[in-house]
């Protein structure tokens, strides 16, 4: 009798019930209807579409387009990262409390960073496409801004987290702050800084695919067309190219991070042939990226461009705050929130189920496959499976996130303290009880932290899924921008920003409470 034997049964049951009551309206808003998945008509439609995936399109002309688009995606991500880096170094320096005599939080820089990060890169891309015309320039700038914000925030935090003693010593002996940071903190934090930057580059590749959906070039643009025309063969080839790119980037970044872990060779010069080669590759890669994209940066900084940018931005003010429009945006916020919560919860359940079985290997493959398909692509498929609407969006989030969470959960279980489980095992408890009362409590804080982090990311994604017909704020924004209703669009962008800040705060609060 599990229930009577469990001293915590009552609070657990109560907790679960409260959660259900709180979440029920969200499930309603997300129009969850699992029946649609089994509807004969829908199954046939999606079956036909997926059947068309085989064989993948291999026509010479198409492969030519595909190769060019793949290079373009890679170049957008790399050029965007350079821009982000150039932006993040001064901003991170301003934002961090490290090396300051009195720790301040520097509210101006911090709120600038929140602004840069809070608006999804897709929205920036959409805006830049208007100002700078179509093509990769918009994607590069959008990536540069959002990732600049993220990098700066994380750089600031990394610098705050390393041992301040050497920097303090330098400052006390009269060194200025930049020098104290450069020689006191950067050497200690260098590995972590580099590792995070490389990881972000990998994310940028994924993100630059998504931005193609609004006309910023690259693989996403091809994917958007193939998906709209429901051309399965082309979609399959693009997906394969995309997966290959992501896996290659993943491998490269793992290799780089491992290389950072090896201790430097024992010789007087800090530079070896390997670091020289690396620096050269980086430089060549960046130059090649900009050459390939052929962005007339000179053109971006003319008085003309500044004027049209100014006019464009001025169009967004004042935002439309009429009661009627606010009601509509409010509904969009609610729908977006519902999509993100339901998607994350479904993902948590699916991820948990996939993380539990003991030889991880076959499930690991499923998790990787789920994870490597971007949410926007899943959304076009789920929209076929359950029809257009928020439920399709929630399912798309759930599929991608299940892949991410499953992997993290499996690691959390492996790392959970084993003592309690072993004690239960020795006392003769069956496997189920061992897991529930031995492994699970130990891993729970980790599981909750990971799930909440993903929720923070998913709220930004949910705001975007509307671009492919999943409702919520994204659909409103796409519609209003298409019609040049900038005052209305501006309200939607503000709503997205507030929503993502709100979710960040809630998630931080929940993490604190549940710790």
């Amino acid at each position, binding site marked *: 009798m599990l229930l009577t034997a469990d001293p915590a049964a009552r609070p657990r049951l109560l907790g679960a019930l409260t959660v259900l009551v709180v979440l029920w309206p969200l499930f309603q808003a997300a129009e969850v209807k699992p029946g649609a998945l089994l509807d004969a*008509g*829908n199954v046939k*439609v999606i079956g*036909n*579409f997926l059947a068309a995936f085989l064989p993948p399109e291999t026509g010479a002309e198409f492969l030519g387009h595909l190769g060019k688009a793949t290079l373009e995606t890679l170049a957008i991500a790399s050029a965007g990262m*350079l821009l982000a880096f150039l932006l993040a170094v001064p901003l991170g320096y301003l934002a961090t409390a490290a090396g300051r005599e009195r720790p301040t939080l520097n509210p101006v820089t911090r709120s600038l960073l929140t602004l840069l990060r809070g608006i999804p890169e897709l929205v920036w891309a959409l805006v830049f*496409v*208007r*100002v700078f*015309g*179509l093509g990769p320039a918009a994607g590069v700038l959008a990536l540069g801004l959002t990732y600049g914000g993220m990098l700066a925030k994380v750089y600031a935090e990394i610098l705050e987290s390393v041992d301040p003693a050497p920097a303090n010593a330098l400052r006390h002996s009269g060194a200025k702050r930049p020098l104290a940071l450069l020689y006191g903190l950067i050497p200690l934090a260098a590995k972590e800084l580099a590792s995070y930057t490389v990881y972000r580059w990998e994310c940028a590749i994924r993100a630059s695919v998504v931005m193609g959906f*609004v*006309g910023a070039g690259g693989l996403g*643009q091809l994917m*958007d*067309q193939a998906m*709209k*025309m*429901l051309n399965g063969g082309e979609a399959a080839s693009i997906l394969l190219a995309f997966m290959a790119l992501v896996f290659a980037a993943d491998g490269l970044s793992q290799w780089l991070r491992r290389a950072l872990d090896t201790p430097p060779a024992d010789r*007087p*010069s*800090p*530079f070896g042939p390997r670091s020289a080669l690396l*620096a050269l590759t980086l*430089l060549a890669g*960046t*130059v090649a990226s*900009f*050459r390939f994209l*052929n*962005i*007339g*940066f*000179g*053109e971006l900084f003319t008085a*003309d461009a500044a004027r*049209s940018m100014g006019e464009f931005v001025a169009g967004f003010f004042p935002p439309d705050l009429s009661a009627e429009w606010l009601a509509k945006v409010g509904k969009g916020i609610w729908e977006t929130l519902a999509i993100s919560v339901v998607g994350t919860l479904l993902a948590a359940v699916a991820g948990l189920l996939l993380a539990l079985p003991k030889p991880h290997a076959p499930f690991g493959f499923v998790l990787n496959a789920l994870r490597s398909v971007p949410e926007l692509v899943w959304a076009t498929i789920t*929209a*076929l499976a359950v*029809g*257009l*609407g928020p439920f399709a969006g929630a399912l798309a989030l759930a599929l991608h996130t299940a892949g991410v969470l499953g992997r993290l959960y499996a690691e959390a279980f492996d790392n959970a303290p084993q003592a309690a489980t072993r004690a239960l095992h020795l006392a003769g408890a069956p496997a189920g009880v061992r897991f529930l009362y031995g492994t699970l409590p130990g891993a729970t804080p980790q599981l909750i932290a990971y799930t909440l982090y993903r929720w923070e990311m998913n709220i930004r994604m949910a705001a975007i899924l509307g671009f492919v*017909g999943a*409702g919520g704020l994204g*659909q409103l924004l*796409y*519609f209003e*921008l*298409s*019609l*040049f*209703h900038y005052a209305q669009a501006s309200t939607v962008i503000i709503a997205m920003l507030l929503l993502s800040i709100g979710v960040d705060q809630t998630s931080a609060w929940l993490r604190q409470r549940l710790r």
Partner: protein
Amino acid sequence: MNFSSMRRLALKAAAACAVASLFALPATASDAVLRVSAIPDEAPTELQRKFAPLGKYLEAQTGMKVVFTPVSDYAAVVESLATRKIDLAWLGGFTFVQAKIRTNGTAIPIAQREEDAKFTSKFITADPAIKSLADLKGKTFAFGAPSSTSGSLMPRFFLQQAGLNPEKDFKNVAFSGAHDATVAFVAAGKAEAGVLNASVWDKLVEAKKVDTDKVRVFATTPPYFDYNWTVRGDLDPALVKKLTDAFLKLDPANPEHKEILALQRAAKFIPTKKENYDGIEKAAHAAGLLK
């Protein structure tokens, strides 16, 4: 030279290279190039294929290099025309009205197809239960792009006149983005009904790209003015004249011209004027798409 100064030198050199690479890029030449684009009412690859012979013809007529930029966003074409990033654009009726407003009335429509003077949209479905516009209540519905004339604005206007409000009366409204995509949405059951321009529908039926046993037309809108070729207002008037003449000179009796016209799905091109699109502007205000 010690290591630290060498390092400093190397860093400086790298920084200089990075900065130089940003600016040392070839600036796009803007003289003697005619920059053309079109609203993406069909797949961009299809638009490029359709434009190729017309582009060659315009090159011969104007003596300029013609560059066609395919795009995937309607509004971007309007914005590019307004910010003088393109010179000539194939616009829909509503995108022309938007361009007119965003260029303070300077954009000039120069020619339209004979067919565009009495254009229609077709409502399609694969659901046997849908027989009239009134049956659309509670169904999922696909428009083309939000700023499409024949795939969004005019159908919305005529739906409104039939007493239907898409946002309230349909279960879900989707924007497929392009006319041929709308057909794919409806054929696949992604949306229960949709609307698209008559010309693309006829083309898909002729090319047997749609199964007419399954997907059928159940309503057609009254005629209205649609597509035209528009130039930005500050283009050299002599060039505008050359371009206008080039379109009007296209003669179906000439086999070379016939190919161009066939690809544009035009019997011939006729002159057009801004006033032709006043009706669309009124409809856009009525449907709430213009504020």
